[in-house]
């Protein structure tokens, strides 16, 4: 049996990679993908604890996380398309309408 902290370290690593992706990339599509990476990291932790505690509540929570991820992707990509129609760019540095 794999010890649970190996799963937690994997989750932490994937989450950190997602954070670095959000901070360093300029392409908005890659930023959205990094957010999906972070949600997957959370799901790994939830399901690892679900397995070790012997209760499926964690898996039900993971289903809700996947639901939120799907909703977020749909709305996020809608925003990307609307933005591309206006500014013809995917570079977030050029999208600074609300920047003070």
């Amino acid at each position: 049996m794999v010890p649970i902290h190996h799963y937690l370290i994997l989750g932490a690593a994937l989450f950190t990679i997602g954070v670095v992706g959000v901070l360093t990339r300029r392409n908005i599509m890659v930023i959205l993908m990094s957010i999906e990476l972070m949600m997957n990291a959370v799901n790994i932790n939830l399901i690892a604890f679900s397995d070790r505690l012997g209760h499926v509540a964690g898996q039900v929570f993971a289903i809700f996380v996947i639901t939120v991820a799907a909703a977020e992707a749909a709305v996020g990509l809608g925003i990307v398309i609307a933005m591309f129609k206006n500014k013809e760019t995917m570079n977030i540095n050029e999208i600074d309408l609300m920047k003070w």
Partner: protein
Amino acid sequence: MSVEQVLFYVFAALAVISALSVITLKNVVHSAVALAATLLSVAGIFLTLHAEFLAGVQVIVYVGGILVLFIFVIMLIAIEKSIIERQFNRQWAVALITAVLLMGELGFVVWRGPDSLVLAEPLPASPSVLGVTGNSQLVGETLYGQYLLPFEIASILLLVAIVGSVALSKKKTQAE
């Protein structure tokens, strides 16, 4: 090492390597393909945790749904232009500090040992009214029993997301 352990370390290595590719590859299509590899590896990790239903959901919803949506949008908007543009911010210092802090913080909690991770009394074994033991049946029973209200709220969230994305991406008609 048992089969389970071998599978876990193989899938974990694949997941981390392909996640690193997602954030380092310059071409956004390559990033999307690397993300597919990550998501499939995570599905494999779910299998090593005896969450067969979630592994299926991961493949169907994430890889078959969300990721295809991503690729649709990438193909829809011009990729030629975005490849020429600079892909990285000059924020490596900030990103490095954040990553080290975050990893240190998370690593510290994990390193404090399995004792600190025993959070609560082990929950009573999953309710199985009908004596079911299969993973999908167990998840379904819990989802439609104990967590019925969150389930309905999630369906409202999806409805809002559908309406929102249609409203965002529809063309202005003449009447408006």
